[in-house]
């Protein structure tokens, strides 16, 4: 298709852009298609937890106008408190989808908003690849840019957050991050306020899209500061920074969730400080031109010390006075990885807030992780202003990625860029066919020397000549290029494998392997959520652990008590207490919160390990944080400190609502055989196999629905007894009556055979 540029030299100027366009389009195509594994394997579905909220908010935005979206008070979450959703979200993602949706609608193309949301992340990853190309081109060359684009297109570290269906803020944020960075170095290079304003514009978009905008808010000032300290202050820097900061800050304050944070919170103070410093430096430059140098030095020393002290004093003072908000807990946990575990269990309970394990660096970036330092080293070689920026980004990115798993995402672009710089340098060296004239003689000499070791005089002669640096041996060329091509091939293999196996599961739908090798889809979550949606009153209140709040809101469309927004720790602790206490304690809590149904996740039948019994300790811990006298973590462990659910389980454990609701009638499923929990691999006490065990009895709630594989169990909270008895007494009375009548037939054994055959591939 593409004519080689060498064959028709006159048109090379036109062919190269065409070739470049074709390569970039191919990269975008690869980036998009490698993110479609889950669509091909499952369906076009929103993944995991947070995306369900974003999806729900998008649907709200599409069906209402923009201002009512910003004013949205959601009374269907955090019952009975509600959530000021419009003011506590980053609207960028939803607005982007809504714009796409409305423009497609305007073209009368029939498109489902769900498909827009599902495909948003892959499409934006294609754009990210393009922006990374632009960015890297500014650093080095076109070819490095193309390599970087190819790397970011398929790097698992980025794919992990941008597969089709992963409809989260990060889906567009990485694109915006890279675009803002590109515009920033462009503005800095040109010293242009136009580019500075563009930087501010996309900075605003980034602020609207993701909380990670703080990263930009700090890295650009840091870059400016480092440049000043390096003595690289210039009018270009002054123009670029001032136009970005002033416009960007004003713009960012238009987002309701951000509001006055840019002038009141500690995270934003750095940018303000550097802005002030730049004015001073700019002023001092102006003064320097007009004063003798000795006077100037004194003035600068006094002014610098004085102003710095004043500024620091002002910031500290204002923080104590409460004008500037101190750093938030999530921010502290960035510096002290143990902080969250001690002070905020709710942050620590989220797996993506854990420190990164070393293998995941390789897992997410493969060979780039060792090209990355080489790239940074090469940038030090030239150290232009934009190289300084990338070096700062590399250092900060590496640190943050080490602290929190999810920040692997912000590291990946810089790893790709530096890797591309390193690799393209290697390629440039080894593919450079031009050989200096003298070299041929040299190599000839070397050859001769090898053949005739005796003629050492010639050899010395060759050494004393001025050396020509370069790789001219065809063998070393072939070996190095060949091995790097193999690495590249392995990189592609690895990326595809990781994407396909690790990052393409919707987690709403699970796949399991049947004995004959075919895949079986376990769709219990949607089964139960759809049941709630169709067969409960529209205003029913569902209590579940906060992990499932967004999914219930999105799929079941019912009111929840707590959700993944986790803004109110006490409310979550209340739910934790209701789950971890005895029925008599929980029931008043349930009544007070108008709970109609309780939803628990139970994986014991098929071995789904992410269930509520495994998360139970977090519920206990969070509840203990608020009611240390009533809920104690210690009571849930056996005297030997084990977490048991079998006959050795502590009475507190066995009487807790969560335990009862998880295992209610579970042993009955096994008939005469022993009931085994496949997640914790422990035997559940059953009256059939163990005469001392009593069947679990629930007095205040009754089973309303259990999904096919028992993953989701829904219980209905009973009304107050009509005769005013307590529920235990009423149940005992009913039982007595029932015993006189006919007994319920026990199910035949082997009722679990279907579940047994499945092995989870989660």
């Amino acid at each position, binding site marked *: 298709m593409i004519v080689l540029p060498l064959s028709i030299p006159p048109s090379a100027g036109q062919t190269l852009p065409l070739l470049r366009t074709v390569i970039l389009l191919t990269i975008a195509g690869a980036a998009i298609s490698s993110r479609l594994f889950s669509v091909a394997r*499952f*369906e*076009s*579905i929103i993944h995991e937890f947070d995306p369900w909220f974003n999806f729900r908010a998008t649907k709200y935005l599409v069906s209402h106008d923009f201002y009512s979206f910003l004013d949205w008070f959601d009374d269907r979450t955090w019952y009975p408190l509600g959530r000021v959703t419009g003011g506590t979200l980053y609207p960028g993602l939803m607005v982007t989808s809504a714009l796409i949706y409305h423009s497609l609608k305007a*073209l*009368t*193309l*029939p498109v489902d908003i769900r498909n827009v949301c599902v495909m948003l992340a892959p499409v934006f990853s294609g754009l990210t690849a393009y922006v990374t190309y632009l960015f890297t081109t500014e650093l080095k060359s076109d070819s490095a840019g193309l390599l970087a684009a190819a790397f970011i297109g398929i790097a698992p570290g980025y794919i992990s957050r941008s597969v089709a269906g992963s409809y989260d803020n990060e889906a567009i944020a990485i694109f915006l991050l890279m675009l803002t960075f590109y515009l920033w170095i462009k503005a800095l290079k040109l010293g242009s306020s136009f580019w500075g304003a563009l930087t501010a514009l996309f900075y605003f978009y980034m602020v609207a899209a993701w909380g990670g905008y703080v990263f930009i808010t700090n890295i650009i000032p840091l870059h400016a500061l480092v440049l000043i300290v390096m003595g690289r202050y210039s009018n270009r820097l002054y123009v670029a920074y001032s136009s970005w900061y002033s416009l960007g800050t004003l713009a960012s304050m238009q987002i309701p969730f951000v509001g006055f944070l840019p002038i009141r919170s500690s995270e934003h103070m750095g940018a303000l400080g550097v802005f002030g410093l730049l004015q001073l430096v700019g002023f001092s430059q102006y003064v320097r031109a007009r004063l003798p140098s000795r006077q100037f030095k004194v003035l600068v020393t006094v002014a610098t010390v004085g102003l710095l002290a004043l500024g620091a004093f002002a910031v500290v003072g204002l923080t104590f006075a409460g004008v500037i908000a101190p750093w938030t807990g999530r921010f502290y946990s960035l510096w002290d990885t143990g902080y969250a575990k001690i002070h905020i269990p709710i942050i620590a309970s989220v797996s993506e807030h854990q420190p990164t394990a070393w293998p995941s660096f390789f897992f997410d970036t493969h060979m780039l992780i060792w090209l990355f330092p080489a790239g940074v080293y090469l940038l030090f070689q030239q150290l232009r202003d934009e190289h300084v920026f990338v070096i700062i980004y590399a250092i900060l990115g590496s640190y943050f990625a080490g602290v929190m798993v999810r920040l692997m995402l912000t590291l990946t672009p810089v790893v790709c860029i530096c890797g591309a710089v390193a690799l393209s340098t290697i390629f440039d060296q080894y593919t450079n066919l031009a050989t200096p004239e003298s070299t041929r003689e040299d190599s000839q000499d070397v050859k001769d020397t090898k053949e005739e070791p005796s003629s050492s005089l010639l050899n010395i002669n060759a050494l004393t000549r001025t050396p020509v640096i370069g790789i001219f041996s065809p063998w070393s060329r072939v070996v190095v290029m060949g091995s790097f091509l193999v690495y590249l091939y392995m990189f592609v293999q690895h990326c595809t494998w990781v994407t396909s196996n690790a990052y393409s599961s919707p987690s709403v*739908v699970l796949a399991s392997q049947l004995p004959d090798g075919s895949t079986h*889809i376990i*769709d219990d979550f*949607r*089964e*139960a*959520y*759809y*049941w709630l*949606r*169709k*067969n409960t009153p529209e205003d029913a209140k569902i209590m579940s652990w906060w992990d499932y709040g967004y999914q219930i809101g999105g*799929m079941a469309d019912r009111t929840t008590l707590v959700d993944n927004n986790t803004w109110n720790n006490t409310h979550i602790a209340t739910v934790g207490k209701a789950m971890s206490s005895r029925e008599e304690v929980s029931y008043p809590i349930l009544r007070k919160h108008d709970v109609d149904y309780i939803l628990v996740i139970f994986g014991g039948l098929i071995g789904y390990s992410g269930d509520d019994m495994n998360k139970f300790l977090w519920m206990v811990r969070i509840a203990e944080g608020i009611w240390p006298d009533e809920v104690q973590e210690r009571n849930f462990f056996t005297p030997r400190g084990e977490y048991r659910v079998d006959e050795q389980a502590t009475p507190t454990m066995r009487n807790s609502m969560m335990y009862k609701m998880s295992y209610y*009638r579970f042993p*009955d*499923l096994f008939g005469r055989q022993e009931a085994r929990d496949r997640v914790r691999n422990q035997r559940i006490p059953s009256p059939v196999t163990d005469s001392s065990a009593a069947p679990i009895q629930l007095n205040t709630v*009754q*089973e*309303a*629905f*259990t*999904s*096919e594989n*028992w993953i989701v169990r829904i219980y*209905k909270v009973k009304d107050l007894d009509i005769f005013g008895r307590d529920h235990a007494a009423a149940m005992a009375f009913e039982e007595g009556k029932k015993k006189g009548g006919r007994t*319920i*037939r026990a*199910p*035949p054994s*082997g*009722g679990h055979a279907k579940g047994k055959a499945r092995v989870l591939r989660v």
Partner: protein
Amino acid sequence: MASLIYRTLQLYLLLLLVVRLAVASFVPSPAFQIQNLLRTVDLTKSYLRESASFIIENISEESQDEYYLAMPLDIVGNSTDKHVVIMDVKEKRVDPVVNLAVEAGPANEDLGIQFYKVQLSKPLATGEVSTIQIATLSIGALEPQPKLIKQPEAQNLLWTGSKQALIPYKVARQRTKIKLPDRGANAYSKAKDDPQVDGTTLTYGPYLDAEPFAAETIQIRYEYHFPIVEVTKLERELWVSHYGGNLATEERYWMTNSAAKLSETFSRLRWQASGMAGERSTAIKGFSVHLRPGARDVYFTDEIGNVSTSNFRADIRDPVLDFRPRFPIFGGWNYSFTLGWNHDLGRSLKVLSAEEPGSNTYILRVPFLEGPENTVYDVAEVSIILPEGANVVDVFSTYKDYSKEELLLKSHLDTIGRTVVKLTAKNVVDEHRRNDLYVTYTYSSASSLHKPIIVSAAIAAVFFAWIILGRIDVSISK
């Protein structure tokens, strides 16, 4: 002036009253006598099917060409709870059997009867005889009793009806045969040696020389341990695409189960046990939809995505869509879902004529319904979406009881909008699968070129604007 109006009004009201009185007490003249009536009440489905076959004899002085049917007034209205549908009325005097036209006649509120006028194929002379066959369907005539059952318990249905057929003429001899599902009746109204029981069939009668409108109430309670599927709303869309040569069908269902409700909450344990034992249940576990041959690209979704429990068997001659809802639908539970598939347009579309060059008349033949069997639809909206620029000439169906609308819909880069024929029918049953729908329309080749021209022009305009704008120099620093 005012008095004139007043008097006119008075006159008018009087006239209205007279007409109304005349209508309210209408009884057809006793022109016929019915001989040897055999009525069959079929209780094997989730709705009631009744058929009657009898011989009418003209006993009046002059020849007759109108016969009257009688139906209870309370079930002929538009209510979706209880409703009767006249499927067809046939006459067999000489071969072949002919379908007769039926139109609503007057109502007699004293008797509580709605009359329907049937136009006989040709006037019946005095003393002449003819055979009439009537088939009707009643929706909501069967009630679960008791209304609440335990999860594995059997469901009983109660039918309340009459021993005799409701006939506005004298009936010389009649019998009523009641067909029951395989487990027979567990309770029924009895007289001395009436009815005779033969396996799953009860026969009441024969009764001789009954007066017009004779009726004796009987009740039959029988085990019917199957779901009673009721589609509260169906939106069926058929997209005709001449470009793709494709007929796309999409059906959106809002379904409920009208069987007895659960007296306790649902227990998965019991459900799995009864499933293991292969017991029958009133819950809707799923159903198979036999699609027309050549169906492809089948999908089954609901509000939250693919219904992964369902399946499609792509047999060339008999493609079957096995729809299994995510959870069993017990009595009183609801479900909504969407089914869709594609067909080659060639199978359903014929060119009728090419009257003028560049414009063809086409005729499209599609089934009125294609959904599950043994199902009642409260409201069924069937929309046929024709290509942009098509003009509807005629819509014809063997099923007549619907209202028709023509709309415009903009989709897939339309500028004018495509013609939509929307038919709304109430109280339909799955047996209307047999009824075909014919839509005749004209579509010119100019219309088929309309969209490509518009789209290319739009793209060309964009590029042109791009070129123009790219040449404008907006820089301020020179």
